[in-house]
């Protein structure tokens, strides 16, 4: 049996977690691009260094983004990955698919690329991983025929993402999927044609559990919330206490025994709940809607009905000034289709950011540089205590 060309990578075929090496090898059998990818990766494993050159500018007609150019720095050894560009395909909101649509995508990619993908990229796109420049346009054409379009890249609006929301979650305070889809279609121009100081990302989570990590990974995070009371089913509370219903959120395992006092009452961040052995009382004025009690007793507690969203701005990774999490800009905004108030806000933000932002300066960094105060002025928004963890302790006030 011929000695394997990828002894190091072969080690990763062992072990219980699904092996990407095994998966690539299947495709490598029929796809030289995949084969050479493995061979180049083996070299990287040996030398402990990547073998991809700085991306060039590649793309499809009419778009300034959606494709990440990639070239091997050893095309001599790995000719089939001399080019290995990736195409970002905008995912359907909530990553719902029919097998028919997925099979179409697979066929297109089998014809035009390495047959490898990331399902999905961290921003949310379907990542078609690796092809040659000449395949880009034909591949795009077939994708478009099949009803798919490219996602964002470069200094543009990037592909928005949404949590599963009302499709399958009882805690969604607004239609995350519709909002994400609507907004993505509304701003196609900004998405396909980079025109800003740098990238801009939206993320839509249906409630403060934030299952699409909007507060950490988007310049403008939309998180569902409610203004009225948590809905309580006292009988169901007793059922949890009595053990008839197992607490949710994986309370199972060796920590199964449910203790409402220890597991819920004492973990409420504002201690605004009381349990007297029979009845659960929630002082909703002091509830900060952290979701914990609801997470643990979903059959007994439900978010309120007067729902909407909290808008937060500024989240980003560390380069250049340090990582940021988004900050509360608007504590509460009603959020129904066609989301006009939200779209107007986005346009206003982009205008101010485009006017004042330096090259590669994200929204959060610009707000930090110019001051939240100037940003609020530009947005015509009031300063409210919900925006701060603490008022300033620095005495340098620009009266």
């Amino acid at each position, binding site marked *: 049996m011929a000695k394997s060309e990828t002894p190091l990578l072969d080690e*990763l075929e062992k072990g219980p*977690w699904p092996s*990407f090496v095994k*998966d*690539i090898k299947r*495709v490598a059998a029929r796809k030289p691009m995949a084969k050479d*990818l493995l061979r180049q*990766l083996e070299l*990287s*494993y040996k030398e402990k260094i*990547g073998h991809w050159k*700085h991306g060039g500018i590649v793309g499809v007609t009419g*778009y300034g983004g959606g494709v*990440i150019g990639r070239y091997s720095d050893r095309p001599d050894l790995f000719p089939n990955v001399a080019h290995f560009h990736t195409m970002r395909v905008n995912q*359907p*909101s909530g990553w*719902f*698919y*029919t*097998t028919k*649509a*997925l*099979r179409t*995508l697979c066929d297109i990619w089998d014809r035009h690329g390495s*047959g*490898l*993908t*990331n*399902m999905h990229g961290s921003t949310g796109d379907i990542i078609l991983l690796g092809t040659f420049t000449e395949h880009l*346009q034909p591949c795009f*054409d077939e994708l478009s*025929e099949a009803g798919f*379009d490219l996602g964002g890249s470069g200094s543009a609006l990037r592909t928005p993402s949404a949590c*599963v929301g009302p*499709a*399958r979650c009882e805690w969604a305070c607004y*239609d995350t999927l519709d909002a994400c889809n609507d907004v993505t279609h509304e701003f196609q121009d900004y998405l*396909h044609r980079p025109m800003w100081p740098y990238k801009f990302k939206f993320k839509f989570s249906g409630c*403060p*559990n934030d299952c*699409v*990590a909007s*507060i*950490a990974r988007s310049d403008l995070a939309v998180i569902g919330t409610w203004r009225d009371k948590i809905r309580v089913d006292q009988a169901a509370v007793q059922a949890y206490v009595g053990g008839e219903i197992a607490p949710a*959120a*994986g*309370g*199972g*395992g060796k*920590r199964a025994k449910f203790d409402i006092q220890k*597991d819920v009452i004492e973990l409420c961040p504002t201690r605004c709940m009381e349990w007297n052995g029979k009845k659960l009382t929630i002082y909703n004025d002091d509830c900060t809607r952290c979701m*914990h009690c609801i997470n643990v007793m*979903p*059959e007994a507690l*439900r978010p309120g009905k007067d729902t909407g969203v909290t808008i937060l701005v500024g989240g980003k*990774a560390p*380069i*250049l*000034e340090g990582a940021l*999490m988004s900050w509360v800009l608007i504590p509460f905004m009603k959020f129904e289709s066609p989301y006009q108030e939200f779209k107007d806000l986005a346009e206003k933000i982009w205008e101010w950011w485009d006017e004042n932002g330096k090259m590669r300066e994200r929204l959060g960094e610009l707000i930090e540089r110019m001051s939240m105060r100037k940003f609020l002025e530009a947005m015509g928004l009031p300063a409210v205590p919900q925006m701060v963890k603490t008022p300033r302790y620095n005495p340098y006030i620009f009266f």
Partner: protein
Amino acid sequence: MGKTDIGPPDFRKFLPPVIKKNYGKWKYHRILEPGVLVHVSERGDEVYTVRMGSGRLVSVDFIREVCDLADKYCDGYLRFTSRHNVEFLVTDKKKLAPLKKEIAAMGRPIGGTGHSVTSIVHTQGWVHCHTPATDASGVVKAVMDGLFEYFGSHNLPAQVRIALACCLNMCGAVHCSDIAILGVHTKIPKIDHETLKNVCEIPTTIAACPTGAIRPHPDKEKKSVIVNPERCMYCGNCYTMCPAMPLADGEGDGISIWVGGKVSNARHTPMFSRLAIPYLPNNPPRWPEVTAAIKNIVEVYAKHANKYERIGEWIERVGWERFFKLTGIEFTPLHIDDYKLSTTTFRNSTQFKWG
């Protein structure tokens, strides 16, 4: 030429009937067992979800296999989660067992729900990016092999979210994860003075450095730049702006481990990941030092934390002094911040534990 600006397909076309019928009408869910949920709607309809672990870097063959299962058990519908796992949506409870059996037969795990280690959010690494200080898929495979028991069980005090980013650009939410695996360079950029002037704009390159470590090359002829080793902290931003300044180095590159980050607002407000281990060597293919270090952290956490305490909440309760003592991880000067917000991380109180 394909039509442009058509945007993503309308998700409504891809919603299974049970979802369409109960859209926005769900009442509660239960976690039946690790990797299997049931959601019950206000009308009493039920949808069962089987969550299958996926390595994210998957081939079209894998996707077709998944489609076969979805056709057989879910009327041709499926979804992916925000952490790359596959979710099979089943309406007929009796189909659960055979579906689970077939998934197992494919060698695919079921889990990632509740108090588990769900799949690791990760990035390109040596597979595709040009600025990595480590690989992504390989490290994730090695680490998940080591933590495999925690994927399909609910024995942890709370959810453990692990993420990997192969350089300081930190694609993904490495900056807010229970455990973060971050590729780090430890050697200054190797400047290619010949090509620099053709491929880089000197002022932009100089301005790219957060610590002002880049200055014009003293020898004017060179029309290049030099890096002051004292000021460089290997962030790689110069390389992002100027291809003639690569940092990747077979010996110098490695992995740092960060802990205590959190995205959700449950109980505690969201938190950044904090430095636990500054440097572990790149040791492909199975990164033994990295996998051992992470397993140690997960197990010390599992042993000491209270129920519903994420790693960051546990550490906040027992104190960082106790975290370093219990895990045996050495606290070094590198752990102490020295960038813009450093003073907000220093301890301005005599409140501390001896160990």
